[in-house]
């Protein structure tokens, strides 16, 4: 198991280096960083000195190593747009994005999985048919449209919930949070639903088809033959086997949620990293874009590692014997 984790760690580092290379290429070769930093009236010599000082004349591999070294310490230079340190700009906005993403993911999990279990156990029940129909809508409507519809209904017509911004936040020094005030929580509701709805429908459909599959297996039939209660069979044996493949997808989806937050943050003027990214694209603010790329890459890698570890916790077939045995059931 240790060897497996080590192998995964090495893979993760390789992935991060690749993302780093893309970010570096963006940084170095899209536009001229000097142009972006100095005014029109700077002389060629001054530019050249700056170029030398910033190390832009060093061989590319050296520059890459320096870039990676800096990135590892959270140094991404100054924003072309605001001249603030990029690391700090991003860190300030991470809490907004993470809180939104986690709420959206919890919404998707806590509603999507039970809905999937229900429709898997009672596929013919009218409620299941309703869930299926609703999930079709969730899958086919684009996120921004769902956001706008929700704003229209709950903010404009019913005036129940705010339509933009984080509402009230509490500053904990290293983190600003929505969770400590009622207004902050209210502000989270619409964006979380918007961001989570697509993943919710995906999860529901996945859990449903896995559940249907598992209920047909021999070990479920044998569990019935042993006279186990429906509760033990449905929520013990069946659910646990259903969750094995669901864990991977849910992990991937958390990554997707964080990445897709861009759209939702734009619709709801949510001051997160995604919104910052959109602003950076408009201004060709390369350092911010590069840092954002690396941040998302890092999150994906961390999520995948967690998923792998969860697998070990859930599936005994992976323990002890490495990955040699097929995981089929």
């Amino acid at each position, binding site marked *: 198991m240790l060897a497996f984790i080590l192998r995964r760690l090495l893979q993760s580092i390789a992935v991060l280096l690749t993302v780093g290379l893309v970010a570096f290429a963006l940084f170095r070769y899209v536009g001229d960083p000097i142009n972006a930093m100095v005014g029109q009236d700077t002389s060629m010599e001054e530019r050249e000195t700056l170029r030398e000082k910033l190390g832009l004349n060093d061989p590319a591999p050296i520059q890459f190593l320096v870039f990676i070294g800096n990135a590892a310490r959270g140094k991404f230079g100054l924003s072309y747009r605001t001249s603030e340190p990029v690391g700090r700009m991003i860190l300030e906005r991470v809490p907004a994005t993470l809180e939104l993403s986690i709420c959206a993911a919890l919404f998707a999990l806590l509603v999507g999985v039970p809905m999937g279990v229900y429709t898997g156990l009672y596929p013919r029940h009218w409620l299941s048919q309703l869930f299926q129909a609703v999930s079709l809508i969730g899958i086919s409507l684009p996120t921004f449209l769902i956001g706008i519809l929700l704003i229209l209904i709950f903010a404009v017509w019913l005036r129940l919930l705010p339509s933009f911004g984080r509402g009230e936040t509490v500053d904990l020094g290293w983190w600003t949070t929505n969770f400590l005030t009622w207004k902050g929580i209210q502000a989270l509701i619409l964006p979380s639903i918007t961001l989570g709805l697509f993943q919710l429908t995906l999860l529901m459909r996945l859990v449903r088809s896995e559940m249907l599959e598992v209920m047909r297996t021999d070990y479920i039939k*044998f569990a019935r033959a042993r006279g186990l209660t429906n509760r033990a069979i449905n929520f013990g044996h069946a659910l646990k086997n259903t969750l094995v493949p669901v864990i991977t997808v849910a992990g991937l989806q958390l990554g997707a949620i964080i990445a897709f937050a861009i759209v939702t943050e734009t619709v709801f003027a949510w001051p997160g990293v995604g919104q910052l990214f959109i602003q950076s694209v408009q201004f060709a603010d390369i350092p911010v874009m590069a840092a954002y790329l690396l941040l998302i890459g890092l999150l994906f890698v961390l999520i995948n590692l967690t998923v792998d570890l969860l697998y070990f916790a859930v599936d005994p077939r992976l323990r002890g014997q490495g990955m040699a045995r097929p995981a089929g059931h």
Partner: protein
Amino acid sequence: MAAPSNNPPLLEVKNLRVEFPTRRGTLLAVDDVSFDIAPGEVLGVVGESGAGKSLTGNAIIGLLEPPGRIAGGEVRLEGRRIDDLPYEEMRKVRGAKIGAIFQDPLTSLNPLYSVGRQLVETIQTHLPLSAGQARTRALDLLKEVGIPAAESRIDHYPHQFSGGMRQRVVIALALCADPRLIVADEPTTALDVSIQAQIIALLKRLCREHKTAVMLVTHDMGVIAETADRVAVMYAGRIVEIGPVRDVVKHAKHPYTKGLMGSIPSLGIRHDRLTQIDGAMPRLTEIPPGCAFNPRCTERGRRCLGERPDLMAAGATRAACWLHERGGVGTAVTKELADA
């Protein structure tokens, strides 16, 4: 060992019918099947694949898969009718009074639970034991079915056991609550040939010791000959011959059974198909009128084409064949006549 005949039967199956509604009409897959099993008796059930053996077994344990359903007849256990019990009542019978063993030990166990956990949950479902007592019982069962080093193996997961060892675990699971009857549906078909005889011997020994009756479904006549007290031979959804194992094996009365006995494979040699008889069993949609066996029967007469025989006394067994009725089969028919 012959079952004492004066005891009331443990299991009574009377005129059981199992059907499948399909778009093109209803298929009758088990047609008017009746038999008894005495306490402690081993009833072998043989027949070609598709004869209705599994459906009969599943109907008895109340686990027919929809859209299959019991369309008629009744099943009684210790005198109490069980085929019409509500799901929850029947659940309490399964595992407690009737244990089941299925064909494939590789897929019968939940891969994510240790075998100990699966044993303990089954024991605690049916017996009022504490977790500790249940675990002790689980250990005893594992030892009884011959799992070496049971103390450490109890916490292992199914994938850590070989096929034969897994089937032993499955047998232990079926025995958890000391049921009166075990329905074993081809318990060795999926196993390695070298393991089959061991598993059958184990099943036979355990059921004798626990005085558990067994309905042993198999298409291996060798297994039946060595294990069963009585045999029921199924063909196209019906029992065509039933009687004490010695008589059926040595003096089969139904032409189909005679064909089966033509070459009894020795115990442990697996025959995927019973190839001694020409032709194949008809599909449910193509069962001929009269005796369902008539297209393959060398002794058929005109009567066999029009009238269907029920089970009738034939020597020491009962057979569904006109040869054993006073009227006989009527005049012989040629192949051409039968096909016309």
